[in-house]
């Protein structure tokens, strides 16, 4: 019985039991549904074993949206708990678990897959390629990430969630002070997902460097591709730090080492340092592709080329270098002394300069344009002032002496939500709306879309601006409750109302998808926004080989040139196309990784060893496998092209 006891949640509550039941029902419903509609074969052939970057992208999107829901529910619970003084909706242990998982889910399992979705779906199309450099590896990246995400979410119902904050500072996260398996989940699930991300980074750098269409020099790449390239370079340099860090944390928790403990020479500050050496670049990994999307959207709907292309690229390069030089600003209060603080204070503020350049370039892109207010454009326009507000509070936080007062308060919480929500989340929704017709062949409803954007912004302002104020009034972050006498209650109530409005906005987004699936016109052609770059030059829906003939490029806006200046994109004739084969190996291997991770979390060594052998067996199989891909014949391509051209009208 003892063996099974440890799988129980240590602090069960009505909410957790409710969630268990609903998860069980949902899973049964999915299984029954797939069986009833006889879709197992379809699922296996077309999705689970696929190596097509577009399908993998869409799977990333689905995970991101699911995780957005999970993280959003966490957020609402926190805001509700704090909306009234001495609220008893959540107890302290519960609240700690909720804010911990909210942070991890939103950053690593929502924002990361969301941008990876854009990498996957867009980059090969934007650079005129047929797939990524390593399609099989790409599938493995996704499935590892997926299994990591699922393992992490399992902590909610099996064994208990992590409760030491998303930063998981030791010694709090060590065995001494965090006794449930929650932090084991943190260490191992993020490790597995992180491996996937690292492979994504390698894959996309290679893709962008080697597989661009003829004529597309580096300085002729679309801005999103540039931003993705730089973000992936950061991934490759930052994620190994996380790998080592999590490995050390795992060893502390499972094997009794003393890296971060309070005795035998352990050093808690090392965790904080290494965490942020990864953690700070990580936020730039999220924000740079978002900047790229805004650049695409703003120039499309200003009907103008992007202003200051070169300085846009240069500023991203500078940001990526500085992202590795600022980590100590996350703990100015650790007692490093004024010299160190001054250095990190200055490097941090310096990031404002290239970021400012980008803001001004977007403003100058609107200059002399012909601005059309579509939904994606609305998000981009709302982004500029809201993000500026978040950016300047970042400069305030960078003043290290003043940071002694902001640190660990709601002011900080307000700041990073103020950059992440308008910066990343708006970009994700704007990009989703913008590229929806490319993926699915119909547009999302514009009216509902604009309502969503406005509601989200009003909710955002109400939810987060009050936090700046309560922070300056002494409300520390991560407090599960406060007393009436502190005077925080009114503003926290406003925050809750704001969060509720944001929840309504997200619900509206979901309704919009449903509504548009039912009622939107399917007759929109392949270029509904009158866009500018290569991804719009192919058919909708995109054939599996993307381009029947590889396009030739002469400027940053090849498709626009072909529409306006008579640039000929597709020269030459159709030839047979080499495509990679589907493979079940990534999926199977990731499933074994899941088993491995789970048995590590609970220290079930025999299973872990068997799983490890399974993983090695998969690698062995892969080493000896002969797989030269397959060819799509000219007739088949011509047939597909004719059909799609017909559909296009």
């Amino acid at each position, binding site marked *: 019985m003892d063996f099974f006891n440890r799988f129980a949640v240590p602090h069960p509550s009505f909410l957790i039991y409710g969630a268990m039941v609903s998860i069980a029902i949902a899973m049964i419903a999915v299984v029954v549904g797939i069986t009833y509609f006889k879709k197992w074969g379809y699922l296996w052939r077309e999705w689970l074993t696929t190596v097509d970057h577009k399908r993998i992208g869409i799977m990333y999107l689905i995970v991101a949206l699911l995780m957005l829901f999970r993280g959003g529910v966490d957020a609402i619970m926190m805001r509700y708990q704090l909306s009234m003084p001495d609220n008893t909706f959540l107890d302290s242990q519960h609240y700690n678990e909720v804010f911990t998982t909210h942070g991890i889910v939103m950053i690593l399992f929502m924002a990361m897959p969301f941008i990876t979705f854009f990498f996957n779906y867009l980059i090969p199309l934007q650079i005129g390629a047929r797939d990524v450099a390593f399609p099989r590896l790409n599938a493995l990246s996704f499935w590892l990430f997926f299994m990591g995400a699922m393992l992490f979410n399992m902590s909610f119902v099996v064994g208990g969630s992590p409760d030491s904050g998303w930063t998981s500072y030791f010694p709090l996260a060590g065995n001494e002070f965090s006794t449930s398996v929650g932090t084991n989940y943190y260490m191992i699930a993020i490790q597995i997902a992180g491996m996937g991300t690292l492979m994504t980074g390698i894959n996309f750098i290679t893709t962008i460097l080697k597989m661009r269409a003829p004529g597309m020099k580096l300085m002729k790449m679309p801005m999103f591709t540039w931003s993705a390239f730089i973000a992936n370079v950061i991934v490759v340099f930052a994620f190994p730090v996380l790998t080592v860090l999590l490995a050390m944390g795992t060893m502390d928790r499972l094997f009794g080492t003393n890296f971060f403990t309070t005795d035998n020479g352990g050093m808690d500050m090392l965790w904080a340092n290494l965490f942020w050496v990864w953690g700070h670049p990580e936020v730039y990994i999220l924000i740079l592709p978002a900047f790229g999307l805004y650049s695409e959207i703003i120039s499309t709907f200003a009907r103008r080329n992007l202003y200051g292309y070169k300085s846009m690229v240069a500023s991203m390069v500078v940001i990526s270098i500085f992202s590795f030089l600022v980590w100590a600003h996350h703990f100015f209060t650790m007692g490093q002394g004024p010299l160190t603080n001054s250095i990190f204070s200055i490097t941090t503020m310096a990031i404002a300069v290239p970021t400012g350049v980008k803001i001004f370039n977007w403003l100058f892109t609107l200059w002399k344009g012909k601005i059309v207010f579509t939904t994606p454009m609305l998000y981009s326009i709302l982004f500029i002032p809201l993000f500026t507000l978040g950016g300047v509070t970042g400069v305030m936080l960078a003043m290290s002496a*003043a940071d002694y007062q902001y640190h660990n308060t709601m002011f900080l919480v307000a700041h990073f939500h103020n950059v992440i929500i308008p910066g990343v989340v708006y970009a994700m929704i704007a990009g989703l709306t913008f590229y929806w017709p490319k993926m699915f062949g119909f547009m999302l409803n514009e009216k509902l879309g604009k309502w969503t954007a406005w509601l989200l912004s009003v909710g955002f302002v109400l939810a987060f601006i009050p936090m700046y104020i309560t922070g*300056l009034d002494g409300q520390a972050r991560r407090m599960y409750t406060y007393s009436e006498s502190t005077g925080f209650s009114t503003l926290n109530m406003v925050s809750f109302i704001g969060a509720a409005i944001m929840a309504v906005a997200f619900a509206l987004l979901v309704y919009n998808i449903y509504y548009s699936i039912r009622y939107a016109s399917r007759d929109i052609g392949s270029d509904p926004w009158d866009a500018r770059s290569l991804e719009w030059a192919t058919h909708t829906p995109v054939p599996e080989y993307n381009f029947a003939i590889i396009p030739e490029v002469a400027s940053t806006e090849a498709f626009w040139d072909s529409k306006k200046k008579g640039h000929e994109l597709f020269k030459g004739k159709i030839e047979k196309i080499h495509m990679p084969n589907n493979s079940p190996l990534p999926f199977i291997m990731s499933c074994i990784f899941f088993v491995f991770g789970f048995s590590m979390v609970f220290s079930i060594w025999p299973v872990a060893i068997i799983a490890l052998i399974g993983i090695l067996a998969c690698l062995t199989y892969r080493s000896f496998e002969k797989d030269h891909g397959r060819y799509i014949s000219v007739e088949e391509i011509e047939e597909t092209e004719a059909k799609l051209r017909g559909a296009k009208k």
Partner: protein
Amino acid sequence: MRIKMKLMYLTIVCTIATVLAGCEPLLVLDPKGPQAKTQADDIMLSIWLMSAIVIVVLAILIFVLIKYRASNQSEDYEPPHIEGSPLVEAICIGIPIIIVIFLSIVSVESNYKVEATPAGYEDQEPIVIYASSSNWKWHFSYPEQDIETVNYLYIPANRAIEFKLYSYGPITSFWIPQLGGQKYAMSDMVTTLHLAADAEGEFMGRNANFSGAGFAENTFEVTSMSQADFDEWVDEVHETADPLTDEKFEELLEPGHLGRSTYTGTHLEFSPAPEHDHGSTDSEVEEPKQEDHTDHESGKQTNHDNH
């Protein structure tokens, strides 16, 4: 749509303005000591400067949106192709650089101020108080006065105070917003926080860094009083309080919440602060150099067993 947007920003600006100027001052912006004053001044300065930037960006945005919206232009207007102009971009880089240089100077100056004996108290010998945290309490040891308190802090007003911070457990952060910003208390090094209270009064103090289940209630009260009252309190404690023993201290360290209590003697005698020298292992986490002058205080308690 634009009206909605303007409304939204008016709301933000108004809310911030009312609260900042409003009925009850925010703790951080209501400083009662020189360090907090330095920080509050920096904060207000940066708020004004940053507001100016936000307003400029907003103004440019609204202007271009109104002037260049499609419905304001003729059907056949074709936006020009503009690559970018070195002059304009130089200005866009130059102005932020000037702002950043200005703020950097302010920031560096303040860094050295808050890490030194508070301004105006340089000629005094500071009173040293060891503040250590355990789950979820604060222990204040007064080695000179030879007393120890739990969860409350009495300090003389108008006197420089040097807090020596460390932790029996997770990283915590010692914070008295009205006297000055916070600093971490950690288990294997001692950090120093220089504060002073310009006025008598009661202030809120707390642990600001998440440290587990009892974190929210991990607070303490600070009372600043005249030197005479403080001396009187010290004498009273010596007359009435029990001595702090090793066993009693172990009991106090047990996780949980406790009310206030007072002892004679300090735990530093049997459970000294982790003031060992780290060598040159990591310059990032080395203790600041200017702490050296206080080493005589703790020299006798320095324990080398840890190495």
